[in-house]
């Protein structure tokens, strides 16, 4: 039995969940094949960034600005807020520019990201199936629109365990943009679904304790907490001796880990040890909860062995005020995204860290209200770097108006299959039995996108 099968086997047994001691969660090198990436940092741009202003330059769309969108594109297609409205072409609102040796063309609002394009692969042919935020997020995270399926971070930790003895294997950070277009994000997006909650993403809070209930109650100092945990452990051992229940052993280990989290998280969150140059490179200010600070925190989590780090940056939902809105978002993410990739590269970590930048869908080539774009599922872009991704390339394309991914389209399942592949997992074989099915992240489809592998 390969380790992955073993874990799946245990998962099927009645009380199997939780019976594995903590140590087995720490196991590494359990993959189906040699992994290129040890970890993922997913810079999730929530709300649906407009590929047409950010990554996918369409001069033809500019030429057709204000004209009717040809019906050949839109007939019989899904449509969100533009239901029943006139569909008019809406040209790109910002110029594009070529960057680096690869000459990859992206928005001129993203000069810093431009400087790392030779390290990145730009997919211009993503497509999805869900046109509203909540289901689209759910599909992008879990491969299904049904609630209750594990998210990709949970699958990764379920498959590979974690390398950190004192931090969760899957950490989620959320930052808000300043544009006031922040759509809600449900905890379902990082849920372990039908897997046990130990595989769940742990969302760090931006106010109060970063991890819920991390801080001791008023009146309990660190020493007292330690004494209490020692006493609890001693009492558990007595019970363990009397009953031989292996779950007691697991619980003892969990209290030890809880205590280690209590002592290690404050150090993790304290940026005091970072040189001023690093803080400046990211544009991070301690405690501001910004995307920039979260990018730096992501690197610190990666250094500490966290398997899957997902940053949500909200506020990309530009139904209106698109031009200014994208400008604002670009300013919020450009520098920090580039700094994270450069920093990882400098530390020799980019080789085994997969960085992903993208959202739940794209935006229509058609105008909404004269200054915005509606939700769009048939074509959008994703940026990937490191972790076994071929650098300095673009992959796939949308049609001349940026409507549909026509060249080498990449589905959400294809993306998931590729991500798991880089982590050393065959997406067809990482399964869990649920309601009679061998449920997997990629549902019933998904192929590894070989063209973007290094």
């Amino acid at each position, binding site marked *: 039995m390969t380790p992955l099968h073993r874990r799946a086997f245990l998962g099927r047994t009645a009380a199997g969940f939780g019976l594995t001691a903590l140590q087995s969660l720490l196991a590494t090198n359990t993959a189906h094949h040699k992994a290129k990436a040890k970890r993922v940092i997913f810079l999730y741009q929530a709300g649906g960034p407009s590929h047409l202003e950010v990554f996918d330059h369409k001069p033809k769309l500019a030429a057709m600005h204000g004209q009717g969108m040809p019906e050949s594109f839109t007939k019989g297609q899904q449509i*969100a807020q533009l239901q029943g409205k006139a569909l008019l072409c809406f040209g790109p609102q910002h110029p594009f520019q070529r960057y680096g040796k690869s000459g990859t063309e992206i928005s001129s609002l993203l000069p810093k990201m431009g400087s790392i394009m030779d390290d990145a692969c730009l997919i211009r042919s993503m497509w999805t199936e869900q046109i509203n935020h909540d289901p689209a997020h759910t599909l992008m995270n879990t491969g299904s629109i049904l609630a209750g399926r594990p998210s990709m971070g949970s699958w990764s930790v379920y498959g590979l365990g974690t390398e950190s003895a004192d931090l*969760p294997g899957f950490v989620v950070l959320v930052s808000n943009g300043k544009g006031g277009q922040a759509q809600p994000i449900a905890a*379902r997006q990082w849920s372990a679904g039908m897997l046990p909650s130990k595989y769940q993403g742990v969302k760090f809070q931006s*106010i109060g304790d970063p991890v819920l209930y991390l801080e001791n109650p008023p009146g309990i100092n660190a020493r007292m907490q330690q004494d209490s945990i020692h006493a609890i452990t001693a009492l558990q051992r007595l019970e363990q001796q009397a009953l031989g229940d292996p779950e007691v052993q697991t619980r003892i280990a969990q209290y030890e880990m809880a205590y280690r989290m209590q002592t290690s998280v404050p150090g993790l969150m304290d940026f005091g040890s970072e040189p001023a140059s690093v803080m400046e490179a990211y544009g991070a200010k301690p405690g501001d909860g910004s995307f920039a600070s979260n990018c730096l925190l992501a690197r610190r989590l990666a250094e500490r062995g966290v398997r899957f780090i997902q940053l949500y940056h909200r506020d990309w939902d530009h139904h209106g005020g698109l031009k200014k809105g994208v400008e604002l978002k670009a300013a919020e993410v450009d520098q920090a995204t580039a700094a994270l990739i450069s920093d990882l590269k400098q530390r020799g970590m980019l080789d085994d860290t997969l960085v992903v930048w993208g959202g739940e869908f794209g935006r229509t080539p058609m105008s909404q209200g004269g200054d915005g774009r509606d939700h769009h599922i048939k074509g959008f872009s994703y940026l990937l770097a490191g972790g076994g991704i071929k650098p300095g390339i673009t992959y796939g394309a949308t049609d001349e108006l940026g409507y549909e991914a026509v060249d080498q389209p990449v589905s959400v399942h294809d993306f998931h299959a590729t991500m798991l592949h880089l982590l050393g997992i065959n997406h067809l074989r990482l399964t869990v039995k649920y309601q009679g*099915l061998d449920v997997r992240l990629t549902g019933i489809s998904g192929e590894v996108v070989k063209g973007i592998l290094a």
Partner: protein
Amino acid sequence: MMEAMRFLGLYLLVGSQLSGAVSFNRDIRPILSDTCFRCHGPDQSSRMAGLRLDRREDALQARRSGAPIVPGNPTASLVIQRIFADGPRIMPPEAAHKVLTSGQKSLLRQWVAEGAPYEGHWAYQPLERRPGSIDGFINARVQQAGLTSAPPADRRTLIRRVTLDLTGLPPTPAEITAFEQSGDYDRLVDRLLDSKAFAEKQTMLWLDAVRYADTCGFHGDNAFPAWPYRDYVLNAFHQNKPFDAFTREQIAGDLLPNPTREQRTATALHRLTRTSAEGGIQPKEYLAKYAADRVRTVSAVWLGGTLGCAECHNHKFDPYLAKDFYAMKAFFADIQETGLVPDRGKESWGRQLLLPTPTQEARLAELDKVIAAVPAPPAYQAREPHWVVQTPVQQKASGGATLQSDKEGLVIAAGANPDHSTYEITLNASGKDWTHLGLEVYSDESLPGANFARGSDRLVITEVEALADGQRLEFSVAATNTIFSTKDLPAGGAIDGQKQTGWGVNTYGDPRAAMLSLRFAKPVSGTRELVVRIHHDSAWRRATAGRFRLALSTEPIAEPIPIGTKVPKLPPEVAEREAAFLTGNLDLFRAKLERDLLLSAIAKVVVTESGKPEVTRILPRGNWMDESGAVVEPAIPEFLGKLPVQGRASRLDLANWIVSKENPLTARVFANRTWRQFFGTGISKVLDDLGSQGEWPTHPELLDYLAAEFQSDWNVKRLIRLIVTSKAYRRSSVPTPAMLQQDPENRLYARQSRYRVEAETVRDIALAASGLLHEEFGGPSIRPPQPDGYLAALNYPIRDYSATQGPRQYRRGVYVHWQRTFLHPSLMTFDAPSREECTVNRVSSNTPLQALVLLNDPIFVEAAKALAQRMYAEKTFAGRINLAYTSLLGRPATQAEIEVLRGLDTKTRAQLTPATAADLLRAGETPQIAADEQELASLMTLARAILNLHGTVTRN
């Protein structure tokens, strides 16, 4: 090591089945289903080589190269040849990622050699009532395995087990003592089954199954009126409503003759789907989602089937066809609903039922008469309102908040953010005869929820008082410009002298400046100093105004139109609503105010209303945009039979069939789920799938026995009594080495099981043992305190959280407000499901975050304090420890345990200072008893340690 042992144990179990004849259902179907049916099963679209193995006649059919199965001749059977083949001919092929073990191959060969008999799938076979007993069936298997059953559990263990299982609460020390003395188990079971706590425990599990929650789950995840449905379930279990009636009422209560309110409330079942109010949804897509949810829920809860899998294709393993999915969906096509379900305003949440008490109902009728008797007011004539903005002379606030004002009269609250605060603003009112006081409250992006209050999603001003030179002034009428909040928070609520009522804003989307206009009963003249007191005393914490202005007017009628509004005119609906204010009719004003408050106090629940059924089509590959599929009529899955109905079958026909003798599934499903409550696993472990991919039951005769008993009278309490009075239920849970080796998962029940209690029970144990528990049966949900910012990722509106105050915050977990997208963190951490989907099989994990909850979540810290205060009354150290142990673990502590805690006591006291002891004892709202603070604080850390024990959260 443990894993190896567990694997070995299972292998031995399987191995023991090898002796004797092969049983198709037990041994062969699971193999075929898991490894072959995907390509050689019921789904035609994925069938390979035209071969199906799920039906004997097909499997025996000769082909060019021979027959797949030749009964009695494994060597000639193609299937056997291929599974033993090497290289590319091997079945299943490598691409399927399914590997047959040599044991499985041997079983298949033996089965073919024995004639390849097929059996109908066990769960679909008719159910017959036969004599038998739980212990008879269990003991036979235990003996067969060569095991010896564990001895009975001691009385202390037994009373804790059965009390936790039946009520979700631990027994009190007094109950334990009484049972230790009497040993009268039957009476104990009677008492527990009769208790309301029994209904609460059953309700908790049922709510998982029917995906009950308090919020809609998509987009803004706003709260909708569902709790009366929970009351329905509570009462049904408490009164032991027969399960057939329970089923009928929920699925089709509205279609029963002259349905009662209770029966209509039950139909909320179909309205508990997640719904969306996101602009830009495609209504058809969401209607398809809601309907599919109903099919999944009804089929999982009542049929133990995964019919949901057939939304896009014929089922791969079970005989469900895509057509069956849509025929089931067609039963629900009469439910009146919209794709976009508004989450605010008049149309919010669609069809609802009002549930007034008889008194409320009578009063409502009286008020309607009063209001109808008032002649229609003249049409509204807009006037230019004339407000004189007041710059405060001084301002102050209670509770640590501070107020600052600027020259434009804008007052901004800052400083501490107390739950309640009274603002006192002094105005210089000399010189004029004032008729009205105006209060404008401004929204601001920085404020949560509706953006008006400092720390709640709503603003509630419970009373506005005015004093002229020390004399209290009367107000006559009040009006407001708000649109969405007026039933709950009417303008008159601020001048009716009642703390429970108030004016304010409780949802987003109201005007940016909410204005209240109050008319003085007599014009105020000759006053120098006017003191205005704005009270915030509502049940909502921190529902306090953040930014506001005061104004005065000398007009006879000063409308609540914010100063500087571009079109100084009331919206028509506001004008109509505020007719009493505009006409000055006091009787009308009072009657309307009372009516508004009464309506907001009347419970409401979303219900199913039947209408002309929508046409239901098969959606090819589940694609809601594809309307090319055939139209289907309501029908039960074809292989389960046909409803004896002329014309279109209704939901009531479906419900009647579900609880008929013709349907063997429901009783099996329910009996299996019920068994799990008392032994930790189902007799068939996969609770939501009794189909082919489910598990062959460990004790098929036992399951059928229980199911047939249950089907004979649908008596839930009788079924449960049958289980808990068995000897098997009452055994010790301590395993012998032989049990651990041969049956590590305890599937043979030679002993009882040990497992962690559910999330709600973790909470309830702490509340009950510490004496904090507030017992109140039914009613609206409560919001226990939770960390600030926990809902920060929500929007529409931006959310803050106002924890319930007073004793109700200590209610049981079953009453906790179920926020689907962000479930209360302590519940979520202990594996409570989000209830976005039907869940009948909660998982149980063991994580460091659970340790942090038990150690540091304020409610558990407060429980430690309350428990310590109880312990303090005991004289000896051992007595104190034993009280905590007995309350939490149902047994006294051992000497060794007492010594460990004595050590902790010594260490803690060395660390505690008077200041830290006081900090610790400040936990929660529980008043502190008179005691030596150091001693009590140290006891609190001991109670906290015991609350954290595995044994405390384990049922054994």
